[in-house]
């Protein structure tokens, strides 16, 4: 009985400590979401924030294989989704590179001293992605032979 009690006390203490440390961390490390980004206006990321902080790379890596090998694009965990939502904008409305100093990705990665290679190859601002979501529907022409006028305007 005493053993059970002591365990209960220990658990309660642990949970309080966890809660406190989470709060302290959220305040101390700060919220790296850029106020000018689309992400600032939504309540949560595609998964709970705590989960995303710890596991975003797993999600992106999994989605990457789905996209490269399976051709599944524009999905919930896609890197282009991360960029389009989290990219910050300057006062002229020009997107700022997401891996630039002080921007969403790099500010936390710098703090955690974790190197990030995504943007060696991937676009750092949403550019030329409209194809996927909006233009594709307009553009679709099942015969594949009709000439297209709108393509150059898109770029």
């Amino acid at each position, binding site marked *: 009985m005493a*053993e059970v009690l002591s*365990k209960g006390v*220990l*658990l309660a203490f*642990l*949970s309080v400590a*966890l*809660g406190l440390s989470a709060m302290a961390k959220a305040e101390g490390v700060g919220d790296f979401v850029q106020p000018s980004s689309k992400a600032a206006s*939504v*309540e*949560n*990321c*595609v*998964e*709970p924030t*705590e*989960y995303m902080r710890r596991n975003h790379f797993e999600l992106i890596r999994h989605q*990457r294989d*789905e996209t*490269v*090998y*399976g*051709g*599944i*694009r*524009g*999905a*919930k965990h896609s890197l*282009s*989704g991360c*960029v*389009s939502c989290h990219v910050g904008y300057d006062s002229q409305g020009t997107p700022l590179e997401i891996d630039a100093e002080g921007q969403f990705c790099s500010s936390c990665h710098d703090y955690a001293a974790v190197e990030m290679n995504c943007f*060696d*190859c*991937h*676009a*750092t601002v*949403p*550019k*030329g*992605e409209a*194809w*996927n*979501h*909006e233009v*594709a*529907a307009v*553009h*679709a*022409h*099942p015969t*594949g*032979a*009709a*000439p*297209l*006028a709108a*393509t*150059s305007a898109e*770029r």
Partner: protein
Amino acid sequence: MKNESEPTNQGRRDFLGAAAGLTAAAVAPGMMLHTVDSEAAAPTGGVSDAHRWGLLVDTSKCADGCTACVDACDQENGLNLQSQPLGDDELKWQNQRATWIRKVKLQDNLTGQVTNLPLMCQHCEHPPCVDVCPTGASFKRADGIVMVDRHTCIGCRYCMMACPYKARSFIHEQVDQKLTRAPRGKGCVESCNLCAHRLDTGDISTACADACSAEGHQALVFGDLKDPTGPLRQALAKKPNRQIRQDLGLNTGVRYAGI
């Protein structure tokens, strides 16, 4: 020994189980997950072998000096964003910059007959580049598109040696500007992917074929090799055509008429 440790382990399990439950309960409530707008437009269910994408090039319609397909490809896949390294020789740069389509001009020295054709990745059924890749980065998708998984590519360029069509390019320098639809990084090999980003979103077209039609040449027909009623199969049935280096038995997805 076993009897001694057993009760301890059981207690430990109970504790960890309870702790896990507590954590889950703390995280779960009150979470409203943000949904992605694009999911509504989530295009296709991914690639399947119900299709095999291919092209028919009618060389008799391919105009001398026209580079519409090459330019369209450059724009579509961000190849025009590459910049010449400072102090690099112009000729060397033209040889080294990544190109997914090349215009090739053939001349029969006896008759003087000139043939123009665009040459790109032929999307072989049995691709030599995939055979030789040491890391498995070079692969063929279920729908027949031959691609490079640049997350796995180590840049050995063995595939470039193996390709009979000289279709692949190596990225020698860091590329500053990239398009979201066309990532590009130093040290990887890349080649034509039949505008996979279009196909994956249900747009059955390629930039090169669209540009050729827009120019009025209609020398490129894109379509599904497995659809007997589709535009590609109908065009293939009408015109005598062959594969380049048919003798290699690669069963290419890109066919040529008039050579």
